[in-house]
């Protein structure tokens, strides 16, 4: 009976969780925040979605990068949206659609810490508000909350910590920040099997937010492979 069951792929697939083994990151530049993510969602060895969107809008000025279990992070994000929406309705001087980034980060942290035994969710909150400007908050697996100038997350982040620490500068312009995030994620995609697909970027600043998608041929490490003369291409 055991042997007969192992021949069918179907029971195995339902037992393996749908995860966003992934690379996500956010970095604050002068005047805003750039959030970046890859687009691969895997169920074991099967890529369930090769063009998924891991950067979700909480409010117009605060977005969230999701890593870990797709179901957990989608539902945490839905709860955060609900709580933040209701909270903002009560504030009389609040612009519709704008929220304090710190408030969103704290709400997310309360959900992550309060359900730490059930959830497998690592999140990055990035946004811009008038009070404190550009902010990036990391909320990893246990439910801690830290504010940092930049942060990386997901399975692919392990491969790029050193490169990011070495090359990050606090006073980048918007174009420099977007290029830096793109390069970091493409390096992670090159080495991490659970990351791949397109690179999605979201830039948030005082006047709004814009989305960008970079197809594989547009980011330096082409088709998940580093080019032959890799040191030159990274410097460039």
């Amino acid at each position, binding site marked *: 009976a055991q042997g007969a069951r192992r021949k069918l792929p179907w029971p195995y697939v339902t037992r393996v969780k749908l995860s966003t083994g992934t690379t996500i990151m956010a970095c604050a530049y002068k005047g805003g925040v750039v959030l970046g993510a890859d687009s691969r969602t895997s169920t074991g060895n099967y890529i369930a979605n090769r063009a998924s969107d891991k950067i979700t809008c909480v409010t117009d000025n605060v977005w969230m990068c999701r890593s870990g279990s797709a179901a957990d992070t989608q539902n945490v994000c*839905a*709860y955060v*949206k*609900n709580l933040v*929406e*209701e909270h903002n*309705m009560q504030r009389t001087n609040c612009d*519709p*659609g704008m929220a304090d980034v710190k408030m969103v980060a704290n709400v997310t942290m309360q959900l992550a810490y309060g359900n730490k035994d059930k959830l497998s969710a690592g999140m990055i909150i990035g946004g811009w508000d008038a009070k404190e400007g550009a902010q990036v908050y990391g909320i990893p697996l246990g439910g801690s909350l830290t504010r940092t100038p930049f942060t990386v997350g997901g399975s692919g982040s392990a491969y790029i910590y050193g490169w990011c620490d070495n090359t990050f500068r606090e006073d980048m312009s918007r174009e420099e920040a977007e290029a830096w995030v793109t390069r970091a994620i493409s390096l992670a995609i090159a080495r991490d099997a659970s990351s791949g697909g397109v690179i999605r970027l979201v830039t948030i600043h005082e006047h709004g937010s814009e989305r960008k998608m970079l197809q594989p041929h547009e980011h330096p490490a082409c088709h998940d492979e580093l080019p032959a003369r890799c040191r030159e291409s990274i410097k460039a």
Partner: protein
Amino acid sequence: QPSSQRNSTPCEWRRRNRPSMSRGSGAGYDRHITIFSPEGRLYQVEYAFKAIKSVGVTSIGVRGKDSVVVVTQKKIPDKLIDPSDVTHMYKITKVIGLCATGKGPDIRNVVQKARHAAAEFRHQFGYEIPVDFLACKMADQFQVYTQHAYMRPMAAMCMFIGIDEERGPCLFKNDPAGYYVGYKATSAGAKEQEAVNFLEKKVKGANAGNEFSQEEAIQTAIACLQTVLGEDLKAKELEVGIVSSDNRNFRLLKTEQVEEHLTAISERD
């Protein structure tokens, strides 16, 4: 108390001292919301309507072909009160507004319930609550208060406005009895009847309620309020809330914009 009355039982005392049980008398039924009067009236609900009128504020709502406007008086009872905090206009969601007339604390309760209902709906079903659905949920809640013995009705008349994706501009009024319906134009508060008479003259014809432009809707509402109050209003004494097809967010007009409309109305007359 005379000694003869003190010695009798409570029932006998009450029977002797109760006013005559003539038809049409409200005595004896005023206290209990769950009991109908012999004529089929619910006195507590009627008293709630009276409580709303006693506040002395009137509000007007007018629906146009691509916008909805609500206007209310900004009455500041005390010179020491900060005027920027006094309001009858509440945002329930980004795109649904509420103009509530009546007792302030009851209004706060209604606003909280409406906000919570709208947020829950959005979380559960994944799309924004339609205006008529929100009005329906609030009306159901108001009706519950007319049946529970331990709760009184809310002294709040609510006008919900929004641009619905399917229905277009919507204006719904909820009253303490639990009744709700969509309107082309309506009013609430102290001068409700006079305002309705004025509006009936303005909203006529087969296409009534679907033809006002945004300016016409705003000016009809403000002119109605001026007429029923019998005085010229200043921009600072008015709150004008609006939603329109080009900007579905519920917002209040700034004082300068209200001034422009007041000038336009006085030049017209």
